[in-house]
């Protein structure tokens, strides 16, 4: 066991994947000498060479499209998108090529591309640096979408993503890059699945589902609710496409109440998918309609207002009150 920050854990996972497979190459803007704007690839170009850690021209479609060509050639490219809001120029290549080439070629051509995306807000950045675009990708068949919430998962799941023969979007909660945690660097990534959700905190009254940057917030909310006599079960989805609905369903069958929280905008978001799927699967076990606590349907706001937009502990607790039918901010509006 070693103590690593979230960012260093990704770095260690990348290093191990590159050690294990010479076909693993990294591509992105500023990832070489600089080590990336968040230093996630720090030292890798020095140790593995510029032919395996490629600083690319500043063109996201170009990076993604050439990664497709590299994959055709038998490589396993790991692409860094510098910030969430910079992924859109690459959107066409991701949706029309990366996601579909395996289907198009009837399985003849695999696209083992990992797309690393620092995402989410809370770091005081200007426009385009704090977005949560995951639902665009969970809606696209052919892609797998995951998001680790702690250093151990960051370390393990980056290796699982790289070894996947399907393309994987790996969403990194950038405001947690400096969180420290214990990491077992000897652990075997193949011994677990990146698509299994994890019960973070067991509870019996309310199921609180989240992922990525809000997992620590949800855990804190569960502690606070416990102080108030409410037992909250927190589930870290880890995988956003596909979602491990079996784990969520088993929890909701127990608690009868579901709250979902994410930073991304509400309408058409993952919260809607989770609420609908769980309602379909175990409607008669629900004591209340599922409740969503999410970012608003707005462009990501300027930083002095971002903490109004981002769900925090109190907004999550308000959602817990709503699903329990206790007095809450919307009392009197709901019926």
């Amino acid at each position, binding site marked *: 066991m070693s103590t690593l920050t979230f960012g260093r854990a990704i770095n260690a996972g990348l290093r191990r994947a590159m050690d294990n497979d010479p076909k693993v190459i990294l591509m992105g803007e500023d990832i070489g000498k600089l080590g990336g704007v968040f230093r996630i690839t720090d030292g890798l170009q020095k140790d593995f060479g510029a032919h395996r850690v490629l600083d690319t021209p500043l063109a996201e479609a170009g990076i993604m499209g050439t990664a497709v060509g590299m994959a055709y050639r038998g490589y396993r490219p790991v692409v860094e998108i510098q910030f969430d809001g910079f992924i859109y120029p690459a959107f066409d290549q991701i949706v029309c090529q990366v996601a579909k080439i395996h289907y198009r*070629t009837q*399985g003849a051509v695999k696209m083992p591309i990992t797309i690393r995306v620092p995402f989410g807000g809370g770091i005081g950045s200007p426009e385009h640096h704090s977005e949560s675009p995951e639902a665009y990708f969970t809606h696209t068949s052919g892609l797998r979408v995951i998001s680790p919430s702690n250093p151990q998962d960051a370390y393990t799941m980056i290796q699982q993503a790289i070894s996947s023969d399907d393309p994987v979007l790996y969403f990194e909660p950038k405001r947690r890059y400096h969180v420290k945690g214990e990491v077992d660097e000897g652990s075997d990534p193949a011994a677990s699945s990146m698509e299994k959700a994890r019960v973070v905190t067991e509870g019996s009254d309310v199921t609180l589902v989240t992922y990525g940057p809000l997992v620590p917030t949800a855990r804190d909310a569960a502690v606070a609710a416990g102080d108030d006599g409410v037992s909250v079960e927190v589930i870290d989805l880890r995988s956003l496409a*596909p979602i491990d609905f079996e784990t969520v369903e088993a929890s909701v069958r127990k608690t009868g109440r579901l709250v979902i929280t994410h930073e991304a905008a509400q309408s058409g978001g993952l919260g809607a998918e989770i609420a609908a799927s769980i309602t379909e699967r175990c409607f008669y076990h629900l004591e209340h309609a599922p409740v969503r606590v999410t970012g608003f349907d707005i462009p990501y706001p300027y930083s002095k207002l971002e903490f109004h937009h981002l769900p925090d502990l109190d907004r999550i607790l308000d959602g817990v009150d709503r699903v329990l039918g206790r007095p809450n901010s919307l009392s009197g509006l709901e019926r």
Partner: protein
Amino acid sequence: MALKNIESVPGGPGEPGSGLIQLITADGVRVPEPAYDALVADIDGAALQGLYEDMVVVRRIDSEATALQRQGELALWPPLLGQEAAQIGSGRALRSDDFVFSSYRENAVAYCRGVDLTDILRVWRGNASSGWDPYAINMATPQVIIGAQALHATGYAMGILNDGDDAVAVTYFGDGATSQGDVNEAMVFAASFQAPVIFFCQNNHWAISEPVGLQAHVPIANRAPGFGIPSVRVDGNDVLACLAVTRQALARARSGGGPTFIEAVTYRMGPHTTADDPTRYRDANELEDWAAKDPLKRLEAHLDSLGLFDEAFTAAVKAKADAVAAELRAGCLGMPEPAPSDVFKHVYSTPNSWLDRQQDHYERYLSSFADSASSDGSS
């Protein structure tokens, strides 16, 4: 508004005038081109006859496929009529370990790569989302997103570089694609990494209904040097010239000289696809002008001047084309229908819980009809 003017700019994108590499004139006369003659010195009479046969065969494939579409056997077909020389000349220059990333109109290139004829029809009959295993013939299946494949070829070429190999990636696209960001970004990447890739642009003058003057205000080949990529403008209806310039670009790429951009000036004599109607936007005179530069006719005239176009030869070529057309038709009509459950196949390479559930539910739904059918039958 000013398109006419753009097209009439001397040397402009619509003008097959100055700067064109040509080895055989429209009248079939072999003209010296010192910088390129040596590159095709090995092309003797028999090789020229082979190139001619290729062009006749792919034109026959094209007309047969168009007929199959008219007869309701294909949903759509994108003809290459008029572009045989550009595709055969370049396609025959390649080595088997080179890798092609093309658009949907390069059926003659696929033919050169040794594609199973039935495979080129699968997608147009709606029986598959593409036709072949790309690794079987080292050619990606046709790209429909305009220009996207230029990046794939460049990335593949970057992989070749990493491998220390001397293969070359070749991407085919049209004049319309040169307006796409992907093609321009591909040239940036190719130049920066000195990737062994050939950008083979068939300027066929039309992007569906849009004339080339809407895509480019200067000859398309002029753009590449701005990226640091040498370019050449070739008579795309001259199969020998297309072979020569492609060989030159391949040699450059194999020896570490990086990318080349080739603009093959040709003409789409047919519609964009069988769903198109060029009479709505194209002057009949223009078609006549280009018919006079037909790539097959000029090689016929040239072979004739060499005494290589006798009845025995033409009969043999016709027999081959007829046999290929018959094979194509039989392959089309005999194509097995896909099974309903195939709709779920190959979305992922390993099981996916969301899709597995949907497939399970759909199969239950389908089998609910089977139950009612069998109970009807037994009653």
